[in-house]
C-alpha cells in the first residue's frame, strides 16, 4: 500500500502512542488506589497501637496517689 498522507497517518500514530500512555496511566491509577488503601490500613493500625498503649498505661495511672479522685 502507498504511504498514507500525514493528516491520515497522524491519527494512527497518535492512537498508538495514546494507547501506551493510557496503559501506564491506568496502572498508575491502580497503584494510587492501592497506596491509599495501605495508607488507610496504616492509619487504622496506628489507632490500634495508640489504644493498646493507653490500655497498658491505664493501670499505672490508677495506681498513682490521687488518681481515683
Amino acid at each position, binding site marked *: *500500500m502507498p*504511504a*498514507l*498522507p*500525514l493528516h491520515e*497517518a*497522524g491519527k*494512527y*500514530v497518535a*492512537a*498508538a*502512542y495514546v*494507547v*501506551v500512555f493510557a*496503559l*501506564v496511566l491506568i*496502572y498508575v491509577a491502580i*497503584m494510587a488506589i*492501592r*497506596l491509599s*488503601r*495501605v495508607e488507610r*490500613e*496504616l492509619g487504622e*493500625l496506628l489507632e*490500634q*497501637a495508640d489504644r*493498646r498503649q493507653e490500655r497498658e498505661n491505664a493501670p499505672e495511672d490508677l495506681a498513682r496517689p490521687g488518681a481515683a479522685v
Partner: protein
Amino acid sequence: MYGRGLRALSLATAATWTVALGLVFFYAPLEADQGFVQKIFYVHVPLAIVSLCGFVLGGVLAIQHLRTRDARWDLRSYVVIHMSLILGVGTLITGSIWAKASWGHWWVWDEPTLVSFLIVFLLYATYQPLRFSIEDPERQSRYASVFAIAAGAFVPLNFAAVRMSTGYVHPRVLGDTSNLPGPMALTFLVSLLAMALLYATLCKYEMTAKHARGQVRALRRKLSGEAQAQGRSAAPTLHSGSSGPSPAPSPRTAGATAARSAGASSAAPATSSTPAVGRPGA
C-alpha cells in the same frame, strides 16, 4: 527492601522516554515506503521485545524459585509475567493500529508473527487463573513456577519457528534482513531502552507495593496478636522478615484453623496479600 533505587530508576525512565520521543518525532527520518505511520514501529516493536523477554525472564526467575524455594523469587516471577502481560496488551493494540494503517486490516489471521504473539499472550493469560485456582499457597507457587518455565521455554521456540516459516509479510527488525539506517537504528535502540526501563520501573513499583502491603498485614497480625485468615489469591504471599527459603504455610494447617476461628472461609477471596485477583478484605 524493594523500594531502594526506585526514585533514580523512575527519573532515568522519564529522562530516557523524553529523549526517545524527541528522537522519534524530531530526529528519525520518515520512512520512504510507509511514511509517518512507521513511527508506530518505535513503540510497537520495543513493547513486543520487552514483553517477550519478560516472559522468558519470568521462566528464569521461576527456575530460581524451584531451586531455592524462596518465596521472593516466586513474587518476582509473578510480577515480571504480570507486567509482560500488560505490555502484551499494548503490543496487540498498537500492532492492530499499525496493521490497519499500513495493510488496511485490523488483524491478519494468516500472518505468523501476529498469530504467534497472540498464542503466547493467550497462553500467559491463563497464568493468573491457574494461580487463583490453587488454594494451597505452596502448591500454587510450585505449579505456577513449572508453568512459567514451560511457557518461558515456549517463547523462544515460537519465535524461532515463526522466523523459519515462509510467510514474510511482517517486517523484520533484528537479523539479517534488518537494514535500518543509522538515525532510525539509534532512535529504535533508545526507544527499546526507554521501554525496558519503564518495564523495570513498573516491576519495581509493583514489588514494592506488594511488599509494603505484606508488611502492613504482618503488622496488623502482630498488633491484634492473632493469625488472620489467609484467603485465596493469585499473587504470591511474602512473609514479613523472611530473607531465606520460606514457603507459605498451607491454609489447611495454619490458615484453615484461623479461618475457622474467624468464622470465614479460606477459599473465599476475602483476605489476600495483594489485590491482583483476590480482593483484600476484613
